């Protein structure tokens, strides 16, 4: 299989002059911006990977005098900590990306929904926001950003639950359709983008879509910031070009004894050693919002799975049946198998349940519980049973 190999990139944290980039952006029409972003092939960096340009195109097409740009900074996926770093180091680029999005879709208001645990960043972020508002004023564009704090619920990272939370309601996902592009926060057309996506847009405008398409693969354009943790001598934040295999990643970050990598956090996929070489990190293989957790042979994959299921049983909003009850059944079920109180074949029934959760849950949370469950159970069955 051909791939790009592993190469480090410095786009996200690259210092730019925001006024310069924004001035360039505002010389373009909204439609021109959208065309640029579409041409770049950028897909959302939060994990789901919806094409950003398309999202903006749909939102722009809505006829409404009130539209919103929302920045999803509720970084809650276990093992992800890149948005925190981005906000800490280059928040002005996040704001810039929001302004460009606003220009593209015709919005005058932006909201950053910040993870509750990141409250300590707020004073600094607000100071930088003030400077940003000055720049925007100087350019003469009517756009204001405000902050809204999360309170620690994982589900509020789900876009529609996030809107509910901003509105002061219980953070529960909505039925879709309508999608946020039609009815988002305050039921107005909304473009909701991840922190990193917005920064990437800033860089696409600066360098041009073509430069961006030079990086990555056909399905996964550009570079991405990874949060590397677990059994690694070099944990931290790394910006890498998309398109590498898990093996190449492990060769760079592993401790020589890596038996599995959990790509995409608790809602992502577990890649075992035997599949390292033919699994590409990206939308053609295993997608990730950035979380890369390495496990070496000292780790019990039962404990890993148990930890994830415990997390989901706690963090499901509890609204829909498959997710609320399914998570508890999976958790209790693996415990029974481990204790020898249920036969090992019970795991097959649980995998079927995970499949139901994938197709019948209301939102992405319940739909993705099965990812980790299936990949861990299938690849590390002995560790679950014995």
């Amino acid at each position, binding site marked *: 299989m051909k791939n790009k190999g592993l190469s480090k990139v410095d786009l996200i944290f690259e210092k730019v002059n925001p006024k310069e980039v924004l001035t360039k952006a505002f010389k373009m029409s909204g439609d021109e911006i959208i065309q640029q972003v579409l041409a770049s092939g950028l897909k959302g960096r939060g994990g789901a990977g919806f094409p950003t340009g398309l999202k903006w195109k749909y939102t722009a097409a809505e006829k409404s005098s009130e539209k919103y740009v929302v920045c999803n900074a509720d970084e809650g996926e276990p093992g992800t900590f890149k948005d925190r770093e981005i906000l800490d180091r280059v928040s002005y680029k996040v704001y810039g990306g929001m302004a460009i999005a606003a220009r593209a879709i015709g919005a005058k208001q932006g909201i950053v929904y910040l993870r509750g645990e990141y409250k300590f960043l707020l004073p600094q972020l607000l100071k930088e926001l003030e400077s940003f508002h000055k720049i925007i004023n100087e350019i003469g564009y009517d756009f204001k950003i405000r902050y809204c704090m999360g309170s620690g619920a994982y589900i509020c990272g789900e876009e529609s639950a996030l809107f509910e939370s901003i509105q002061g309601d219980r953070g529960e996902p909505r039925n879709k359709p309508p999608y946020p592009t039609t009815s988002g926060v305050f039921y107005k057309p909304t473009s909701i983008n991840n922190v990193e996506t917005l920064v990437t847009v800033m860089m696409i405008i600066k360098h041009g879509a073509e430069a961006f398409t030079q990086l990555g693969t056909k399905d996964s354009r550009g570079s991405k910031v990874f949060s590397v943790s677990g059994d690694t001598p070099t944990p931290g934040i790394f910006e890498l070009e998309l398109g590498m295999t898990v093996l190449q990643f492990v060769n760079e970050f592993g401790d020589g004894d890596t038996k599995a990598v959990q790509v995409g956090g608790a809602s992502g996929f577990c890649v075992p050693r035997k599949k390292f070489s033919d699994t590409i990190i990206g939308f053609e293989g295993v997608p990730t919002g950035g979380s890369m957790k390495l496990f070496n042979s000292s780790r019990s994959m039962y404990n890993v799975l148990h930890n994830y299921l415990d997390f989901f049983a706690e*963090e499901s909003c509890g609204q829909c*049946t*498959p997710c609320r*009850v*399914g*998570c508890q059944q999976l958790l209790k079920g693996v415990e029974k198998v481990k204790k020898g109180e249920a036969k090992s074949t019970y795991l097959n029934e649980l995998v079927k349940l995970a499949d*139901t959760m994938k197709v*019948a849950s*209301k939102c992405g949370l319940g739909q993705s519980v099965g990812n980790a469950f299936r990949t861990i159970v299938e690849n590390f069955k002995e560790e679950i049973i014995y």
Partner: protein
Amino acid sequence: MINLNINDHFVSVPEGTTVLAAAQKLKISIPTLCNHPDLCVAGNCRVCVVEQRGARTLIASCATPVSEGMDIHTNTLKVRNARKHIVELLLTEHRSDCTKCYKNTKCELQALANEFAFGDTIFLDLVEDHPYTIDRSSPSFIKDDSKCIHCQRCVRTCAELQYISAIAVANKGAHQKISSFHDRPMSHVVCTNCGQCVNRCPTGALVEKTYIDNVWDAIYDPEKHVVVQTAPAVRVALGEDLGYDPGERVTGKMVTALKQLGFDSVLDTDFTADLTIMEEGTELLTRLKKVLVDGDKKTKIPMFTSCSPGWIKFIEHKYPEYLPNLSTCKSPQQMFGALAKTYFAKSKKLDPSKIVSVSVMPCTAKKFEADRPEMRASGYKDIDFVLTTRELAVMIKQAGIDFRVLRPSTYDSVMGDSTGAGVIFGATGGVMEAALRTAYEIVTGREVPFSNLNITPVRGLDGVKEATIKIEGCTDEWKFLEGAELKVAIAHGLINANKIMKRLKQGKAPYHFIEIMACPGGCIGGGGQPIPTSSEIRENRMMAIYSEDEHMVLRKSHENPDVIALYKDFLGKPNSHQAHELLHTHYVERESY
């Protein structure tokens, strides 16, 4: 119009129609649970999932609008597997003591289990994994968390129909539950006991508190004389629990059944509904005189009706500053109770301490009302036990009575006579109509100027109704009202009551008299009425009420011969001292948050 295929059948429906509704048009049945015709779409139980070809996941048919060219399949293997799993999952968190449950055979989860999840389940029981409460603190209903399946119908009912939110969702994930403010018992939160949640709960998690056994004990106690009264709305709904379609009038059969059950006197709340009109109508006219002629600042208008105990508790919690606007009249149930152990006892030469007074009500809040400390005017508890329409149906079944073959009979005498005006109390606008029929005649000496006495502007299921009646040709005593325009308003469902109250606070409600019923449709849609409920069912019951009225010989409260005799022999005249002692009450301010 949107064109789509469901199970390879073509259907064309208006934009915005749900897949579920489109399927119903094709007579394709899709099971549902959290869905309810009175409530907003939730899409959270997932029982109604179907397959949309080309879609990544299954879709909830109740929550998904149709789109052009959809190819829907409702019975594929994928759908069946998911549906079975979902019902089984719900059963693992539901304490299935079905054979002992009050909702046995009437439980929607049980019906689904019967279809999709019979036999052994592979899943593990979760009921004991979480601490649960069975809250019996309310005199009206029991909230049993161990039977809750989190469909949130009750939550939506309380918020959307009643604007109370006494119950709401708390916690998340495995700990998610339907809770009250600070997890307090239901008797200690802002709850009106209206029972609308009980009407919509698919399982036994919310049921009325039953007093069936207490009533049987009284009936079989040879020392006791058991008096029963039946509210207007019961007679047009009871049939639904006994095999009739909604809207069937079963008044005569019900009376026979009550006699067969062993009640010693079978009497009619309609009688005290007529009495209420005499008292409340007089109160209204007196208030108008005090305000308009005497310039009395302490007397308040608009005057509110006071027959709905859910509404009373609502205003006591939420708008206590308007308590002086409430009519001081007790509800017909409580007027009846006060008279049963005084006037009735005297007439029948009975020892009031030996009388057990039972009422059959379309209402759960009446159970609370009967327990209010103010309701002991007779020197005893005026009403001993309140049964809902549903409980009466249970008793009739317990007694093995074949309801369909019963011959109709009539109510017993004293306090058994009624008029059409008393009957229409059961529908929204009915109290207003009855009051106008009498008040207009008192003031002008003539009948209300509406064809066949039907005051149609105050009828119907609109949430808030308004009407203006010009008073002309007053008798000398009421000359001050000559030419006046009496402005009235009617609301049903507390969310509509709240709309009127908000307008009133803003000074935008120039009414003299306002009728408010806590439940949608009025008492016909009460929390004690047969389940299920929907606007169509309520409409049928309402039509039956008006038909009952039209079939009555007497249609005006002041013509009720029992009422006339009561004033002559016992009370003197409306709003007399004796009437005040027995038939009027006061209200208390309650906490709000």
